[in-house]
């Protein structure tokens, strides 16, 4: 009886919603236009803050950003009028409205603080506030759409590739632009804008569509992504500041991808993973031309790389060997113990305590730049009139490294071995009873992951020019794990996103740099609570974390069918 009543109520609410829906689009459209126009108005009397936002009809800084938000809102509102079945512009508008609200609130706060009082706020900010509220109201009132992924429009392959290339070019532009912003407050508002637009488009279902296109055009997607990454240094005009951050991101990403083989594919938690990067770095340093190197042998770098990989792989096998007897939490602690032993050993082996291998806490400084057949990584080279500095040189090398790691990762994932790993994650004993060599595959995961990190380490030693034990503390392992968890266990794109976020934000938001670890601790807790599968989840992992989510199962099912067609 009661269910009937509730149902009646529901349909009445739905009725009201349906009647309001066309008006919702109008509201959102109006809000978008208001937002767009507010960018042309003056936001503050004070012309010294946030760029210069006091002049009318000459948008700068945050005024431009608010206009971008307005434009996206207008586009979504127009889509809301047409109501395609494969997009939900209403949800997107809700997100845009909310984000704009945060944006305006942040701007108001910044003006109040920096210029001294709310009186300094001009009409533009208030108009924008109204616009944000209108967009939010429009999005909220819009009828919800049950996304039907089967109605995705199929374009000609060349058009789909064009969309991918355009999206990536856009990404490159936004990245280059974002990195140029020096002012922290402006960077913050830009970040809110980017986040709002991204989340808005994702909520509207566009992300899934792009993913779907990407699925259909894997090769062009990968190639153009690398092209974009390759072009990045050319946008920097020889400046080293951003390239230094970029190289750090790449090393971090390569290591995190290696860790993702162990954690994401084989399902083994390794809390001492940074030791493998350290192993590679120490091997690289000890075999380098540095006057502090403790080993007399100076082989060419190619051999050093192989040595770094081999030594790290051996350590990987040693650290992985307890998997024969322990798993789960205990294994995590065992790996943590090994990681700490590595650091302490590097700290101690200074000649007074045990043999002199590492110069103890002082580490091995003075490692020279790499030199490949006369190509000196330390010097600036000019290509097509654009100077490429020291960090750009390392950037290209590291890009190759990341490409290699991605290749290893994705090919192993899609093979007999990858299937064995999934089987082990799903049900270890059943896997063994079906003839999967459980112990061997676990060891393999450790060895492959470790050798990739070791390889990264040998390059890192030269790029940093010194190696010290305090770079390889437990927190760094936790940080790597955070990149994997944040991005998405078992996916490449996820880890790249995670690594970029974790390394880039603290560098750019200098004021909060001190709060880096604090916020990432909180982030880990929140991610596990609300989105354990990460930002870019692998479908299977998503299922593992949400065993009882029927809707998700159905969705995954549909997509499986789509892929098989």
């Amino acid at each position, binding site marked *: 009886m009661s269910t009937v009543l509730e149902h009646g109520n529901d349909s009445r609410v739905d009725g009201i919603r349906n009647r309001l829906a066309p008006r919702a689009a109008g509201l959102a459209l109006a809000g978008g236009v208001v937002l767009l126009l507010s960018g042309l108005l003056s936001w503050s009397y004070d012309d010294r803050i946030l760029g210069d936002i006091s002049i009318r009809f000459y948008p700068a800084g945050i005024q431009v950003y608010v206009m971008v938000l307005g434009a996206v809102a207008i586009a979504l509102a127009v889509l809301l009028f047409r109501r395609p079945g494969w997009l939900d512009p209403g949800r997107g508008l809700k997100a845009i409205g909310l984000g704009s609200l945060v944006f305006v609130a942040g701007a108001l706060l910044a003006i109040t603080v920096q210029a001294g009082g709310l009186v300094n706020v001009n009409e533009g900010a208030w108009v924008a506030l109204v616009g944000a509220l209108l967009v939010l109201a429009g999005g909220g009132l819009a009828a919800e759409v049950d996304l039907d992924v089967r109605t995705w429009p199929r374009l000609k392959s060349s058009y789909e590739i064009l969309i991918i290339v355009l999206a990536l070019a856009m990404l490159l532009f936004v990245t280059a632009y974002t990195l140029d912003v020096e002012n922290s407050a402006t960077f913050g508002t830009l970040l809110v804008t980017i986040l709002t637009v991204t989340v808005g488009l994702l909520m509207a279902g566009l992300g899934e569509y792009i993913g779907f296109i990407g699925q259909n055009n894997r090769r062009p997607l990968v190639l153009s992504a690398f092209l974009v990454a390759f072009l990045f240094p050319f946008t920097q005009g020889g400046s080293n500041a951003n390239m230094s951050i970029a190289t750090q991101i790449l090393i971090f990403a390569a290591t995190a991808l290696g860790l993702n083989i162990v954690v994401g594919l084989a399902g083994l938690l390794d809390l001492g993973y940074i030791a493998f990067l350290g192993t590679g770095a120490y091997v690289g340093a000890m075999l380098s031309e540095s006057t502090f190197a403790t080993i007399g042998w100076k082989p060419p770098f190619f051999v050093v790389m192989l040595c770094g990989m081999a030594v790290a792989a051996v350590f990987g096998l040693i650290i992985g060997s307890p998997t024969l007897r322990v798993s789960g939490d205990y294994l995590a602690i065992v790996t943590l113990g090994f990681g700490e032993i590595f650091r302490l050993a590097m700290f101690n082996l200074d000649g007074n305590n045990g043999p002199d291998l590492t110069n103890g806490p002082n580490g091995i400084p003075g490692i020279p730049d790499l030199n490949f057949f006369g190509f000196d990584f330390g010097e600036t080279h000019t290509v097509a009139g654009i100077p490429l500095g020291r960090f750009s040189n390392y950037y290209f090398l590291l890009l190759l490294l990341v490409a290699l790691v991605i290749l290893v990762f994705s090919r*192993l994932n899609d093979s007999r071995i990858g299937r064995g790993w999934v089987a082990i994650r799903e049900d270890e004993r059943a896997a*063994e009873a079906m003839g999967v060599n459980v112990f061997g595959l676990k060891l393999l995961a450790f060895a492959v992951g470790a050798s990739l990190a070791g390889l990264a380490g040998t390059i890192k030693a030269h790029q940093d020019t010194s190696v010290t034990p305090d770079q390889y503390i437990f927190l760094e392992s936790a940080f790597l794990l955070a990149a994997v968890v944040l991005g998405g266990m078992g996916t490449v794109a996820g880890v790249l996103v995670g690594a970029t976020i974790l390394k880039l934000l603290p560098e750019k938001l200098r004021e909060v740099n001190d709060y880096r670890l604090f916020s990432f601790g909180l982030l880990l807790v929140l991610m596990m609570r609300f989105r354990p599968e990460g930002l870019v989840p692998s479908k299977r992992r998503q299922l593992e974390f949400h065993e009882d989510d029927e809707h998700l199962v159905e969705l995954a099912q549909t997509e*499986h069918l789509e892929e098989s067609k």
Partner: protein
Amino acid sequence: MTVTESPQSSAHHIGDKVVLEANDVTMRFGGLTAVDSVSMTVHEGEIVGLIGPNGAGKTTFFNCLTGLYIPTEGKVTLNGATLPPKPLKVVRAGMARTFQNIRLFNNMTALENVMVGRYCRTSSMALTSILRGPKFRREEAETRERAQELLDYVGLGSATEILARNLPYGDQRRLEIARAIATDPQILLLDEPTAGMNPRETEETMHLIFKIRESGLAVVVIEHDMRFIFNLCDRVLCLVQGEVLIEGSPGEVQSDPRVIEAYIGGDAEDDEEEENA
């Protein structure tokens, strides 16, 4: 050792070759003797049934055969060679099993599940997989093809891309059988293959098992459904409290008063020990 000729004369010819031989297998957990010197011989192309009330030690016996447990005493030989108590080596030697409480890889598709079964009969390792040479491609294609073949064989040919967890119960049991056959066994151990099935599905499963036997495999089945067992098997062993109560043709076992007594009068110990295996 007890070898009983199978008087159940189905049209099928049972080979003389002994595939599996278990000699005085005993399994003790602390003071509890779950399996007490059980011997069993299985010939090529033979279907042997294992019955007994709950807690009789049937699944424990299976676990001893497949290397999940290391028997306290006794020996298991496959084709005359002693089996080491390691699940991995047992599978490679040619014995595969299904589980009483279905243990599929839930978040893998039906096809992927069967492909995992091919793992021990393929050999591409890390470097081959990364380089994707011709050998790798051939092996992947063969694995895929064989897996699809097996899905067709058990009647799941259209369920290829469905996640194992989404399959109906009966299909999950059949998928488990397909996954087990994928390991190219000579003998198949089925632990309650019709539990939870309706009569029609049970009937289909029976035909499937006959078909598997026709292809030359030996089959050992644990089941509580007596009608199913007596219609299916060439020979039946009845276990009670870890010991073989009687062994013989379905007709002999069916009419033995001790069997009826074991089921009706036997103490209803739960078989939690087995479930936890």
